[in-house]
Every structure is written in C-alpha cells, then in structure tokens.
C-alpha cells in the first residue's frame, strides 16, 4: 500500500538561523521534489519562511523517509535533530492544519494557503499526492469560510486599516496624511493603500504648518509617527479642520511614543483618535479571538483527516473489490453465452431486459460486501477481509 510520508521542520522546532539554511526558492523546491520522486514515488516540497517540509508518497515508507531526511541534511547537516517525521493520517492531518493556517505563527494567516497551492502545482505529484493536496486546499478553504479565524487583523498596521474600514467602508478614493514616516506607519500606509486609499501628503519637519492644516481638512486618515518630543498636532488645529469638513469623519492614528497627537482630540465630534496602546490592545484581542476560532477549525481539519484515513484504508481493499466484481461479471457473461441458443428466440427488447436484470442481480449481490469491505478497511480489518474474499471466491494471485 502507498504510504504518505512527511519530513520537515518549522518555526516550532527550529530557530530562524537554521530555517533559513533549508529554505528553498521555488525552482529549488521543484527540483528537489523531482529528484525525490525518481523511482516511481511522488513528492512535494513546501518551503516558506516558517517551514520546509517534504511530502512523499511511496510503497516503501521507511526508505522514502530516509531519503527525505538525507535530502534536508544535505542542505544543512545540523537540521536533522529539528526534523519531524510523520506518516499517513498524522502526516495528512499536519498538512491540513498547515493549509488551514493552524500551524502558523499567527493562527489563521491566509498566505499559507497560496503557498500550499503553489507547492502542489510545482510538485512531482501523481494520483495519490494530487488527491491529498486537493483535500488540503479544500480543508484550508473550509477553515476560512466556516470560521472567522482569518477575519481579524493580526498586526498594528492591519488593525489601523481595519479601523479605517469601520469608519469609511471601502477605502477607495480616501486619502491619507502621514506625519513622519516610521516603519510601522509605512506599513499602515501600505496596508491602507492596498485597500484603495491614496497618500495625500507625507509631512516631515520641513513641511509648513499651513500645509498640514490644509490637508487635515481634506484627508480622511491621519497617521502620525514622528520622532518629535512633544505634541505635533493639537486639538485646536484638528477642531478648525473639522469645521471645514462639513461632518465628514476623520480617523487619526498615533503610532508615536511619545505621542504626536493631542489626547484632547478625542473629545471632538466627528473624529476618532487611536494611539499605539489602543491598537495593541485590539490586536491582542483579535489574536485571542483567532485562537478561539482555531479550536473550531481544529475539528474541521480533524474531520478531513478522518476522511483521508477512510480513503487511504480503502486502498487496501480496492484491488480485492475490483477482482471480485470482475469475476462476477465474467461469470455473468459466461452464463449468458451458454444460454445463447435460448436467448436467440427473444426479440431485442427482451434480450436487453435479460442483460439488465442479470447485471442488476450481480450489482445488488455485491453492493453490501463492497460497502462492508470499505468499512472494515477504515476499521483496520480491511486486509483480513480482502484475504477472505480472495479465498472464498477463488480470486487468483495475479489479481492481487
């Protein structure tokens, strides 16, 4: 029977300095998968910044595992103690959890699903791994559509963008005023731009106060992260700008420490001020929400792993079932041939009726044994049942 083998390492088992030495570019991963697939195996290499994993499908699971370990040790000998090795259902469950983002640093992150898809696409797959990876992608999509695990932001910059959407809805056509340009504010601005917003002005120490106040009346989101020792924008300036805005809301995000924006701005109508502490609390809460949703997602991927197990186990009995059905069909057609002289007297419709009735009898007789054998396979008795069927019906060795 074909075994599913997984050998790999991830952020749970290896520090970044080790992971980066076994991380592979797409072409390298593709070449490694092709090399491991030689000799009738199937192989996929999943390599991201957080993990490098080799999935193999092979008749000889032990040999496949040895080859996979050797391939990773070839890239970095020190990686061997940090490798995990899983087989069959455990390997499938791991892959499904990875695809669902449940094994990620931030639970539910969505990027991994695309990375699993790409690994599948560039892997050396046959019918076995193709099915396993399709099921993994299905499980990953299911986690995202049936739970809220990926809906909430996981960083300060994405929380700022999500808040802007709570105020303005679609950000297309809305403008951003950047006060200073620190790393976090750049990330926040990038996040807002990816949702359709535009940067109206990046103000620095040389930008005139009049220009900032003028933009304050026009921009929808203000992101502040200067190195100034005190308040850069006071409540009076924002109050004057709000009067010019005729009721249009204004979101102000203060990412600076010490703060750039006067806390008294909070008391003004029509504007919403969030500082770094507010955003960090929101992110902490959403991460705990993701962990709660992860519990629901775990049961979804476990159900998928169970389906994989049933399918995988049924592979034990599929040859016996196929042989049994072929034998029954052989007997049916032989008996019909024997009765040819009698059947000749029948017209075409009567002959078709005899064909149909005999085929139905065979199908109905074999239906229950087929179902029972598949059930037994899932319960680990499949091989015994298959042997019994071969013995009872005299199915030849060559059919195994």
């Amino acid at each position, binding site marked *: 029977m074909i075994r599913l083998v997984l050998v790999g390492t991830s952020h749970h088992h290896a520090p970044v300095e080790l992971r980066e030495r076994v991380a592979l570019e797409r072409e390298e991963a593709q070449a490694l998968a092709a090399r491991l697939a030689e000799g009738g195996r199937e192989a996929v290499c999943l390599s991201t910044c957080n993990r490098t994993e080799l999935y193999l499908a092979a008749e000889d699971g032990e040999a496949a595992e040895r080859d996979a370990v050797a391939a990773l040790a070839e890239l970095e000998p020190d990686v061997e103690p940090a490798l995990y090795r899983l087989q069959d259902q455990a390997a499938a469950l791991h892959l499904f959890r990875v695809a669902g983002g449940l094994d990620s640093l931030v639970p539910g992150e969505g990027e991994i699903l695309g990375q699993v898809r790409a690994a599948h696409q560039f892997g050396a797959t046959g019918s076995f791994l193709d099915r396993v990876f399709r099921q993994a992608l299905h499980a990953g999509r299911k986690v995202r559509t049936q739970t809220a695990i990926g809906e909430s932001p996981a960083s300060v910059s994405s929380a700022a963008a999500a808040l802007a959407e*709570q105020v303005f809805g679609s950000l297309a056509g809305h403008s951003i005023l950047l006060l200073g340009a620190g790393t976090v504010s750049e990330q926040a601005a990038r996040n807002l731009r990816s949702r359709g917003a535009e940067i109206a002005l990046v103000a620095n120490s040389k930008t005139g106060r009049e220009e900032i106040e003028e933009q304050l009346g026009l921009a929808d989101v203000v992101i502040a992260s200067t190195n100034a020792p005190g308040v850069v924008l006071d409540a009076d300036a924002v109050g004057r700008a709000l009067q010019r805005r005729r009721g249009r809301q204004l979101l102000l995000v203060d990412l600076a420490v010490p703060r750039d924006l006067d806390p008294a701005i909070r008391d003004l109508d029509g504007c*919403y001020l969030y500082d770094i502490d507010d955003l960090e609390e929101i992110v902490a809460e959403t991460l705990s929400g993701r962990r709660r949703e992860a519990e629901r997602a775990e049961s979804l991927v476990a159900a998928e792993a169970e389906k994989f197990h049933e399918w995988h186990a049924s592979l034990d009995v599929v040859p016996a079932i196929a042989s049994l059905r072929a034998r029954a069909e052989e007997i049916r057609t032989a008996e019909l041939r024997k009765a040819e002289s009698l059947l000749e007297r029948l017209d075409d419709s009567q002959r078709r009726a005899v064909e149909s009735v005999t085929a139905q009898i065979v199908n109905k007789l074999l239906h229950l044994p087929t179902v029972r054998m598949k059930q037994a396979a899932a319960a680990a008795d499949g091989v015994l049942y298959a042997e019994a069927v071969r013995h009872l019906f005299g199915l030849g060795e060559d059919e195994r």
Partner: protein
Amino acid sequence: MAELLFWPALLLYGEAAVGYLGDARRPGSAGRFATWGVRLGWLAQTALLAVQAARDDGFPWGTWASSLELFVWLVVSAYLIWGCRRPYRLLGLAVMPLAVALLVAARAGGGTGIGSANHYSNLFLVLHVGFVLAAFAGLTLAAALSGLYVWQERRLKTRPATILRRPVPALATLDGLALRTVAWSVPLLTLGIAVGLGRLVARGDRFDALIAATVATWVVWCAYLGLRLVAGWAGRRAAYLALVGFVFVVVVRLALPGSHFA
C-alpha cells in the same frame, strides 16, 4: 387559514429576534438561524396578507390592526433588502423585536379577523394608506440604521479592544443608507398625505389628531432632508434627528389609532 399563518409568522419573527440577540452575544450560527427566521416568517406573513386580502373582499388593511400587520410586513421587507448580509445582522436586533411587538399589538387590536366594511374606495386605500405605510416602513428602517450608527460611533469613540470582533457596517455606509432611505420615504409620505388631504377636502371632513401628527412627522423628516442636503448635517447629529423623527412615527402608528380608522 389566516389563523394558521399568523402564528408561524409570529413565531419565526420571534425566533429571529432571539437569534439576533444570540448573535449579538456571540456572532455565528445564531445569526444564520435568525436570518432564516426572517425569511420564512416573511413568507408566512406574505401568505397571511394574501389570504386576508382574498377573504376581505379587498385590501386587508381596512382596520387599524390589519394596517399594522401590513406595516410590519413592509418594515421586514425593507429590512430583508440588506438584512441577509452579515454586517447588517445587528440591525435585525432593532427591527425584529419591533416586528414581533407590533404583530402582537395588531393581534390585540383585532388581529386577523375580517375588517369591517370600509366606506373608502379601494383605490383611495391603495394610494393613501399604501404610500403612508410604505413611507413609515422606510423611516423606521432609517431610524434603525441611525440607531446602529449612534451605537457604532459610540464604540469607535470609546475604543474598546473588541471593536473589530463583530462585523458592523461602516459609519459612512450607515449614514449614507439612512439618508437614501429617507430620501425615498419622504416623497412617498408626501404623496400619501396629499391624497388623504385631497379626500378630506373633497368630503368636507375635519382634521383629527392623527392627521395633525402625521403632518408634524412629515415636517420633521423634511427638516432632516433639508438639514442634511442643504446645511451639510451628517453623522451623529443627523442620526439623533432621525431617532426624533422615529418617535413621531411611533406616535402616529401606535398612540393615535382611534377615530381615523372608523
């Protein structure tokens, strides 16, 4: 037959109200059940109104109770336009308990019984009551949108860590939808009142309290539109004004039912 349809409609709306409450506490499957409650309840109530219309030899809203039932149907119909979308489920928490309460009030006020023969012509009822009820349904929805706006705006101001946990329509979306709903409703209310006043003058009848309150409601909602479109009101101030306007709608629909329907 009407009896058989009233109870499923009421129970399904009730289930939706409870479901939305559950969804407010923990977003998820309760919200989906609530949405299906609204849909199925609306179908049951639609059938109820159809049966009543067939039985009553004309429109079923010749009585206060029946007109209230139609009003509920219109409110739920208007809600269904957006209510099935996930961010708008919270709106159901404002709309569905109200629908249940009004259906119960309609039942207490005469229920699904056959309305007394009405001296108005059917065409008049279609134009007058139809326009006014459709307008009130729109204004009720606008008030619910404004209520949701005030709630969400307050949350954004107080900055709870849970602010992003629940999908809620954006402030700008709620504000714009409320304005659009009122912009459709006020012309309908104007037409309904105009037809009623025309009939009043033609028949030489006198003003009653309900007519006066309806005209006052019209003035408030016209002021809402004027202040928004001309004076640039938006956001919280406009939302509060919509809630004030809704108080007038409640007074007209519930507090002054008496002689006008006689």
